[in-house]
């Protein structure tokens, strides 16, 4: 291959954009996120990979050149530091709550009590600052002492109330927050420089990427009520759940639009959790999950953004609902749904990304991988609108098998 990095960059970018536009590219593009697999490849621990962003970038570039995919990403800014600075109780990280060589995990709990729905619905900002943040982040415990900010609405006389910000407890929490914000500032600059380095090597970045928000149901379930809590709530206080979801939808849409306008991102990622087959019934899905998710997606679409829900788990029984989405205005990222059925039902509605089982890339044979890649390229890649990718994190995949998969995609994905 004698193409220059500039030519490769342009070609790969076009290939990806065509697929994301539901068009037929010259071949099926392949976009991978190596995640913690970079630690395995570099023979370092996950903790070392997170702690040493220069090393992480060096490994990413090295393996990008070896694998030659159309787009590649590593762990990026998804690392322990902010969590560690703030004493985050909702996540565990390699070396922080987990052995140094294990990938991060989310720890679900109840951070909003059942009787606190009204408080959240009435004033989400106050609930966030004075209840949620101190509960979820140990170092923000001082926020329980924050003033009621709207008292400033009385003008000059209200300023005196803000002197609560001088309380030692509040000051300590503000200092922890300041440190975290500095980390984000430093690393945003680094991330931009890293993206340019990848571009210079011929790899596009950021296509399909952008701010991450949650479906309204998952917003209330994942980090506030917990799955157990919310599943009881849909029986015990369904109206409260719906009212809280409405708040969550508006907060998420506003936050995503604001973030995308600042960064220039075109896509908004929405990993979906409790709406898939097996968690709730179709009847419950129709009341508590789908209208709110669709509403959020339409808000984003109206703002000119492309939502990229990650349909985690299996969605085979609810694919028909997704036909209600405007054509070509969202992207489907898939985990364990039947990709051939997905293509059949939703081929004209949205482009599809992912779905290749990492189990094959972890323990399969080259023959199995080539055979399934061929099947996917022919079945799901037919007519375009398909981006090859894995069904879940590549953390434990074997390098030689990933290479076989990428090469097979290039071979069988060509038009």
């Amino acid at each position, binding site marked *: 291959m004698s193409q220059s990095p500039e030519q490769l960059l342009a070609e790969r970018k076009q290939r990806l954009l065509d697929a994301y536009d539901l068009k037929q590219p010259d071949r099926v593009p392949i976009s991978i996120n190596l995640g913690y697999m970079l630690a395995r490849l570099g023979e370092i621990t996950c903790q070392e990979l997170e702690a040493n962003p220069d090393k992480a970038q060096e490994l990413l570039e090295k393996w990008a050149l070896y694998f030659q995919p159309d787009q590649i990403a590593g762990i990026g800014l998804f690392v322990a530091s902010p969590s560690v600075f703030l004493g985050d109780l909702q996540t565990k990280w390699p070396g922080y709550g987990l052995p140094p060589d294990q990938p991060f995990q989310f720890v679900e709990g109840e951070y909003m009590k059942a009787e606190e729905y009204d408080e959240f619905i009435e004033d989400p900002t106050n609930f966030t600052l004075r209840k949620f943040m101190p509960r979820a982040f140990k170092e923000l415990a001082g926020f329980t002492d924050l003033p009621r900010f709207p008292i400033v609405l009385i003008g000059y006389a209200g300023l005196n109330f803000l002197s609560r910000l001088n309380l030692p407890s509040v000051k300590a929490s503000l200092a922890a927050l300041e440190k975290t914000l500095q980390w984000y500032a430093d690393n945003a600059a680094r991330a931009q420089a890293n993206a340019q380095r990848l571009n210079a090597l011929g790899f596009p970045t950021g296509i399909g990427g952008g701010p991450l928000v949650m479906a309204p149901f998952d917003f209330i379930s994942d980090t506030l009520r917990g799955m157990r809590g919310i599943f009881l709530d849909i029986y015990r206080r369904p109206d409260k759940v719906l009212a809280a979801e409405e708040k969550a939808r508006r907060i998420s849409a506003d936050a995503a639009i604001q973030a995308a306008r600042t960064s220039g991102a075109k896509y908004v990622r929405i990993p979906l959790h409790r709406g898939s087959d097996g968690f709730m019934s179709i009847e419950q899905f129709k009341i508590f999950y789908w209208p709110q998710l669709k509403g959020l997606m339409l808000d984003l679409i109206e703002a000119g953004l492309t939502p990229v829900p990650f349909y985690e788990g299996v969605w085979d029984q609810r694919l028909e609902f997704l036909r209600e989405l405007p054509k070509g205005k969202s992207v489907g990222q898939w*985990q364990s749904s039947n990709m051939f059925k997905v293509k059949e039902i939703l081929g004209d509605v949205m482009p599809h990304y992912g779905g290749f089982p990492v*189990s094959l890339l972890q323990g399969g044979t080259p023959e199995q991988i080539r055979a399934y890649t061929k099947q996917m390229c022919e079945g799901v890649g037919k007519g375009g609108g398909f981006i090859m990718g894995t069904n*879940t*994190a590549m953390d434990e995949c074997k390098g030689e098998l990933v290479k076989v998969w990428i090469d097979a995609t290039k071979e069988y994905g060509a038009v």
Partner: protein
Amino acid sequence: MNQKLVDAIADMDEESALQITKDALAVGTEPLAILSDCSAAMEIVGARFEKGQYFIPELILAGEIMKGISALVKPLLTGGEMQDTRQRPKVVLGTVKGDIHDIGKDIVGFMLDVGGFSVTDLGVDVPIEVFVEKIRSVQPTVVALSGFLTLSYTSMKETVDAITAAGLRANVKIMIGGGTVDQQVCEYAGADAFGKDAMAAVALARQWTSGGK
């Protein structure tokens, strides 16, 4: 049997279920009779889950209703009555080392329990040695390994290998499940079968023990 109580529980009418229990106890109904109605109701819940009428919210709520009823009934029990004397085939269940996901495991535990198995749930992030020890002490027919993260594939394999090394492999049938676990992982880990959901777990356990109900 108090059909009203059974129906209230099975139909997820929490308020009525608790009220009926209170009323029944007030007129002197045997606490054990109420507990037996609860078991009958839970079997219906399990059956509806199996048919795809019920999902996780119903399993959780059913558990909560049980808890509420137990709290009313237990103070009236003299002791000993709660003991389950049935000979149930044994299953040792747990989420493998390195993985703290419990949703799938808990559903499998619930369905095996209402399906007539005696389930020893070892929890999450279960060290390999703990599986081996418990297999030795509990002597189950079935071992069920759960995992959501991809690292669990390796933990499953290591757990199966350790069971083999301890000379216990021939005594147990091993099933795996959760997340993206598939036939490929089953072969890799050296398990006997994988199940894609809790019903598959119950079916496998029945097939292996010719037990349960």
